[in-house]
């Protein structure tokens, strides 16, 4: 038997595979870009909502309680294990600075005496400036400062519900901070304007506090604020993840259709070539192997080039749009490699089986006779 593996050019059609590589790479690039948006949103949800909500829980319903009733409830809540403090507060969700989705960055207004408590609760670091002294002043996280200064309030937050607020530039930034949570902190002297009781809790005790609150609130007349708050927090991340999975799946399906169609056209157009090779003595196995190598090179090249293209697009998008507008954008995550790799593996497996089936069923003798 003559050597059958040292002639790299056989069945390696450079001219034909280049367009497939380009199309695949573009689509993988788009997947990387979509993933980056998804990961950015999830990161922001984690940062703005999940972290913050594990420190603060607004518990008092909107209905007015008498001063005595309020103090009684405050005292009762203070004694729940894991609660580090209870303060009078107003609590609003500002729409996120993220362009695509409002993630609910919290704006918390408390009286000055409770400022330090809040400051400690969210682990504020590198504080510059001063704590806010009245309702038109805010303390803002450094990562949101760019967004605020960029006059992009329409992205930071329009009114989306009665509990949302619009962070306009008529607020005065009294100071900035860095920390584990992302809030806008404001001050309110007037107790009448602070309808909520805000629990400041130990984040590790969140589940226990939540259980006690849930059972306690069954006995209260109106628990809408807590239910809304809990529901939004629990659903947001799941919904975003689900949306991401659906988006990536639909797009991957599109890739499968387009790339496999191109591959199919490529293979079908080479019917004569395969038939000739079979006629001069190349086995089905050998031809399938060589076509698979070609397929492998297409997939690997498309994968690598696609990820590079996606990353380049992300860097450009980040520098041209996100940084100037203060949007925190995720430029790298292991998912940017693993999810496209799964797509590529699926395409490769599907391609291999299809090629094998085609070469196996190819009626090459008839093809030769028809051509002659």
């Amino acid at each position, binding site marked *: 038997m003559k050597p059958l593996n040292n*002639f790299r*050019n*056989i069945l390696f059609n450079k001219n034909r595979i280049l367009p497939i590589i380009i199309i695949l790479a573009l689509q993988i690039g788009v997947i990387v870009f979509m993933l980056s948006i998804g990961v950015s949103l999830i990161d922001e949800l984690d940062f703005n909502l999940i972290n913050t909500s594990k420190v603060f829980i607004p518990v008092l319903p909107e209905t007015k309680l008498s001063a005595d009733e309020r103090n009684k409830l405050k005292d009762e809540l203070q004694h729940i294990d894991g609660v580090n403090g209870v303060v009078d507060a107003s609590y609003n969700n500002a729409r996120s600075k993220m362009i695509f989705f409002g993630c609910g960055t919290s704006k918390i207004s408390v009286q000055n005496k409770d400022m330090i408590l809040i400051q400690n609760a969210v682990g504020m670091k590198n504080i510059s400036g001063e704590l806010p002294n009245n309702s038109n002043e805010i303390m803002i996280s450094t990562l949101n400062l760019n967004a605020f200064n960029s006059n992009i309030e329409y992205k930071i937050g329009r009114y989306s519900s009665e509990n949302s607020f619009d962070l306009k530039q008529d607020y005065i930034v009294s100071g900035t901070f860095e920390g584990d949570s992302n809030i806008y902190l404001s001050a309110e002297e007037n107790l009448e304007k602070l309808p909520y009781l805000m629990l400041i809790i130990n984040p590790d005790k969140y589940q226990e506090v939540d259980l006690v609150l849930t059972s306690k609130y069954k006995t209260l007349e109106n628990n809408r604020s807590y239910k809304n708050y809990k529901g939004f927090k629990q659903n947001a991340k799941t919904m975003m993840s689900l949306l991401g999975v659906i988006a990536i799946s639909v797009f991957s399906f599109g890739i499968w259709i387009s790339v496999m169609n191109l591959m199919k056209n490529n293979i079908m157009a080479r019917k004569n070539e395969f038939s000739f090779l079979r006629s*001069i*003595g190349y086995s089905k196995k050998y031809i399938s192997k060589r076509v698979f190598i070609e397929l492998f090179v297409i997939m690997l090249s498309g994968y690598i080039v696609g990820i590079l293209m996606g990353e380049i697009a992300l860097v450009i998008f980040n520098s041209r749009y996100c940084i100037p507008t203060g949007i925190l954008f995720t430029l790298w995550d292991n998912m940017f490699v693993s999810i496209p790799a799964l797509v590529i593996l699926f395409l490769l497996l599907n391609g291999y089986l299809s090629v094998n089936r085609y070469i196996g069923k190819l009626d090459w003798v008839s093809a030769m006779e028809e*051509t002659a």
Partner: protein
Amino acid sequence: MLKLNNISLLYDEDKEEKTYALRNINLNIEYGKFYGILGPSGSGKSSLLYIASTLKKPSTGTVTYDGKDLTQLEDEEISEVRLNEFGFIFQKHFLIPYMNILENVLVPLNSNKIEDVEKAKELLNSLGLGSKLKKKSYELSGGQCQRVAIARALINNPKVIFADEATASLDHKNAGEVMEILNRLKGDTTVLFVTHDKSMTKDSDEVIEIWDGAIRGSSI
């Protein structure tokens, strides 16, 4: 060296009414001779060539090559015989369009060893294509492509060359040149040359005339 014993080929074996493409063919092909297989279109001459070269399996009968019954071999084994022992020239050149002509000639060897590349160059030189090694098939004329196909058929030193209407798509001049090249092989290589053009068989050692699926006559 190559024997066809009582070969028949049915068009549709499943149908009740049997239509024979070939009927009771017996041939004994000897080493180094040039055989012209002559017949009109649809006579079964190409089918005969396809069966002799193992491209097709006969409905009945056997094909033996150097004493080995090829009809009993598995696909992989038959492929190996074709790759190592036979050379093929078809009416269409079947050059692979994305490879240059030097690479095309090397296809049956599947090799890019220096000695093989040199051999391919020599062959192409001897066929007057030494200056076109890097050209693609679409840059050559029909006659030039067919000469490349001949070089490709010869690269593995085949014992038998099967040529199916190898000159049919060429003009008279180019067809004559191809015949001249094939005639040069006489003595070293057995050539089975299928044609419908009697003038192409004038230098054959033996002409086998096929008519309606059967051998009508054989002349030397």
